[in-house]
């Protein structure tokens, strides 16, 4: 059994001008922050999609009676995979933030099994990136969860409304 990491520290910012590079991504994802804590790993990617995985771990369980993973780690996995699908599509690490994310939990993930998330950026617009994803535990035709979301492209136009006292 893997020992859950305790305090990994935050990841450094991505080097500017770097294209999408799985090796860099994996190092950053595995060794720092929330993804490092959860144990999220890179699997593969192509033009507008990516696959990540989350091995089952006892301390990520939501129901100790069944050993089923909590939904929180699955949201994190899908959030991460969908946001990285945008980077894959752009082939660059443009800053973005989640506007919204919706998850349908189709069935419980099988205890002990690694959860895989496939995610794609199906429309990339100037200010917004539209994403969707599927989480499964071995067979994508028997999914655990579906995700749909939108990411705001923060530096899209270099313009934002002046607001008083905004945070």
């Amino acid at each position, binding site marked *: 059994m893997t020992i859950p990491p305790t305090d990994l520290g935050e990841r450094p910012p991505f080097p500017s001008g770097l294209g999408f590079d799985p090796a860099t991504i994996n190092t950053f994802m595995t060794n720092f922050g929330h993804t490092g*804590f959860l144990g999220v790993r890179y699997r593969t990617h192509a033009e507008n999609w990516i696959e990540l995985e989350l091995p089952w771990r006892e301390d990520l369980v939501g129901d100790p009676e069944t050993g089923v993973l909590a*939904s929180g780690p699955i*949201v994190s996995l899908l959030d991460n995979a969908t946001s990285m699908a945008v980077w894959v599509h752009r082939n660059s690490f443009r800053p973005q933030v989640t506007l*919204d994310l*919706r*998850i349908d939990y189709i069935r419980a993930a099988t205890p002990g099994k690694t959860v895989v998330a496939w995610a794609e950026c199906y429309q990339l617009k100037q200010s917004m990136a539209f994403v969707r994803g599927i989480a499964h535990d071995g067979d994508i035709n028997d999914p655990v969860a579906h995700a749909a979301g939108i990411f705001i492209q923060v530096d899209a136009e270099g313009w934002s409304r002046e607001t008083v006292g905004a945070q």
Partner: protein
Amino acid sequence: MTDDLIEKLSAQLPPYAKAMGMMVDHMAEGAPVLTMDYASRAVGRPGFLHGGAIAGMLEIAAIVALRAHLGDEGMTVRFKPINISVEYLRGGVQAQTFAMGSVIRAGRRIANVRAEAWQADRDKPLASCWMNFLLKPKS
């Protein structure tokens, strides 16, 4: 009474919530308020909470709100999340985070719960969500 309830709800937090450092802090308007310290295990881009960690906290806040709402009956029922929709309103900065759920309706089979997360200012939410749960008797 209140302390007993907080203790009871804390004891029932799932391993995931405990591993993330979530705790039931206090009761407000009859609903439990969840808290989580800022730590690197919850961080996405440098200096900000990961969207998934925020969503995970909202889910736990919704679950404990539902448990508190159902009272003793909640002990015999299993909650299965059906879906969640999260709206992200602000970046989660390096500060303590709070979250609280409110049960809109707990019917015979389905419960609908909304939850909000905030940091220093209760009136400036970080994120909000709605969730549906399927209520099933524990077998």
